[in-house]
């Protein structure tokens, strides 16, 4: 009996008992599909959370005026006027600064904003075009503040979704509408995408105007409330903090870092959050993968143990008719392999399909990694083949009459 005959015999046995073959294949399909779907959803959730955290700006440094240690009385942060447009320009242009990609000078304050019928108290912030990159602002409609708006002191504004819905109603496109900030009339040129957040951190309750308009026209000041800095990469945050710190100290004629009249916040907290969140998700994913592999594997093990053990009598009969142990074990190995190959392929398709449906249903990104598919198929196939082979080997080691009498 050669190999091709063994394969023909195995296919014959598999197609003869369609219910048994179907149930065994179903066990493998469910096992593999659930592993792939679970790992895929886990990865999607992980990806979604990390990208949400990173959208806050993981490479962001913020320079604020004032010192927490100046004299006996500590001034409120932001209540000082030591940070100027020239400081921001120097950071952008100085040859000493090598780690900063974008510099975003900002001035912000809360003020009443009105339209014909509605009004709201919101954060108005004067920005330059690069603000949208530094703070990862994206627009739903319209465009952001441009350099031309800065140069020509245009009365234009970009609004956050919360401001838009307060002033113009839910779902109304505010672009092209006008509103009043202080005594000036502004034309709305863009609407930002919602970023979530709440309270003072609420990035949806905000109005962006050109920086010089905010400084000169609305609030009448000539200093900055903060400078946002985007480092070239997250690894350079500490270097960037040092470079900017020394540059500003020398510009402000200060020699002692302890007497600095500014502070630099890094987003180290956010970075820590990101890395710990990623770590948590990696652990969670491993757990999900392990549990689903275990559950899928046990399902496959059970169905193979039951279907092959049920065939102990058949093994006894084949032995009585002259089949050797080697041929019987080979036949059952081939059957188990065919089942797991076919079941594995269907399971893979089903798993991908399930994760696609679920991810679009609960609006997560659709992620399928080759590793998860390989892991699912390799482990499940190994279990399927092992537990198809083991009872077959056990039965073929029996004397034929013992196998024939097996109940």
């Amino acid at each position, binding site marked *: 009996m050669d190999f091709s005959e063994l394969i023909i015999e195995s296919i014959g046995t598999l197609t003869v008992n369609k219910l048994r073959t179907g149930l065994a294949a179903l066990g493998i399909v469910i096992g593999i599909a659930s592993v792939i779907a679970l790992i895929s959803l886990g990865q999607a959730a992980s990806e979604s959370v990390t990208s949400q955290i990173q959208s806050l700006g993981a490479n962001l440094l913020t320079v604020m005026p004032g010192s927490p240690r100046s004299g006996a009385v500590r001034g409120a942060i932001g209540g000082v006027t030591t940070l100027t447009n020239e400081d921001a320009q120097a950071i952008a242009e100085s040859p000493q600064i090598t780690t900063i990609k974008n510099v975003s000078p900002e001035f912000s304050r809360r003020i009443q904003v009105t339209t014909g019928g509605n009004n709201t108290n919101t954060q108005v912030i004067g920005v330059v075009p690069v603000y949208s990159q530094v703070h990862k602002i994206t627009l739903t409609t319209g465009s952001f503040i441009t350099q031309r708006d800065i140069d020509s002191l245009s009365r234009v504004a970009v609004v956050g979704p919360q401001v838009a819905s307060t002033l113009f109603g839910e779902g109304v496109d505010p672009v092209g509408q006008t509103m009043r900030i202080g005594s000036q009339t502004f034309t709305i040129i863009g609407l930002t995408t919602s970023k979530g957040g709440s309270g003072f951190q609420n990035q949806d309750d905000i109005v962006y105007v050109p920086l010089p308009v905010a400084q000169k026209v609305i609030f009448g000041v000539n200093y900055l409330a903060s400078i946002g800095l985007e480092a070239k990469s997250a690894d350079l945050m500490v270097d960037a903090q040092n470079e900017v710190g020394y540059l500003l100290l020398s510009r402000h004629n200060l020699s002692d870092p302890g007497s600095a009249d500014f502070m630099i916040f890094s987003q180290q907290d956010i970075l820590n959050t990101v890395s710990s969140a990623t770590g948590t998700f990696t652990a969670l994913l491993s757990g999900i993968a392990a549990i689903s592999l275990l559950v899928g594997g046990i399902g496959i093990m059970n169905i193979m143990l039951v279907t092959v053990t049920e065939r102990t009598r058949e093994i006894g009969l084949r032995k*009585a008719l002259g089949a050797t142990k080697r041929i019987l074990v080979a036949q059952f190995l081939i059957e188990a392999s065919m089942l797991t190959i076919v079941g594995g392929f269907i399971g893979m398709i089903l798993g991908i399909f399930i994760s696609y449906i679920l991810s679009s249903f609960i609006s997560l990104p659709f992620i399928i990694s080759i590793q998860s598919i390989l892991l699912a198929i390799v482990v499940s196939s190994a279990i399927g083949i092992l537990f198809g082979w083991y009872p077959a080997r056990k039965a073929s080691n029996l*004397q034929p*009459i013992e196998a024939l009498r097996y109940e």
Partner: protein
Amino acid sequence: MIKISHISKVYKMDSVETVALSNISFEIKKGEFVAIMGPSGSGKSTLMHILGALDLPTQGEYILDGENVSRLSDDDLAGIRNRKIGFVFQAYNLLPRITALKNVMLPMVYGGVPKKEREGQAQKYLEMVGLGNRLHHMSNQLSGGQQQRVAIARALVMNPAIVLADEPTGNIASIQAEEIMGIFQKLNKEGHTIVMITHEHDIAQHAKRIIHIRDGKIVTDGKNGKQKKIKN
């Protein structure tokens, strides 16, 4: 043809030992038709399984067609069962859901008979047992008597030295049982050696020689009608 000397079989269940056969010896010559009789529990089935190389004796020697079966490896035993022994089971033991023809071809698959010859051989033996018109019926669509005839064709298809039948008519209505016995007698006339187990006297009457077993020992042995008592 068959020579067994001092065969014993002891089953161990936990610490309880059950003696199924104790010190049995006899010879069966080529062309004989032997019926082995005895009440249930007498050890006749155990003896048959040892003769069919489906089980190994605890002690003693079994020589079949010149080969010492009690000293063979598992794979060699498979070869012996395939080429030298045709076994007919009480419960037929056909593979369900495949055709009569395929069932009869199965021993040839394991025996390495060239593919082209198998179908012709299987058909020949199925015609011989009167199932020429049932070749492509699924085994589970046949009646009990028909299934047993398929099993007989399967037992014969490798042209074995000996045909062993374990209560071949035990599950079959008496009219069909007569047909089955007719087939065995015909086979015997053609020169096949046949050993059959039964507990029915009228079935045993078809054999030329009858061996009676009780409590794992041979009680009488001899030509049908003239049996000698055996002292153990």
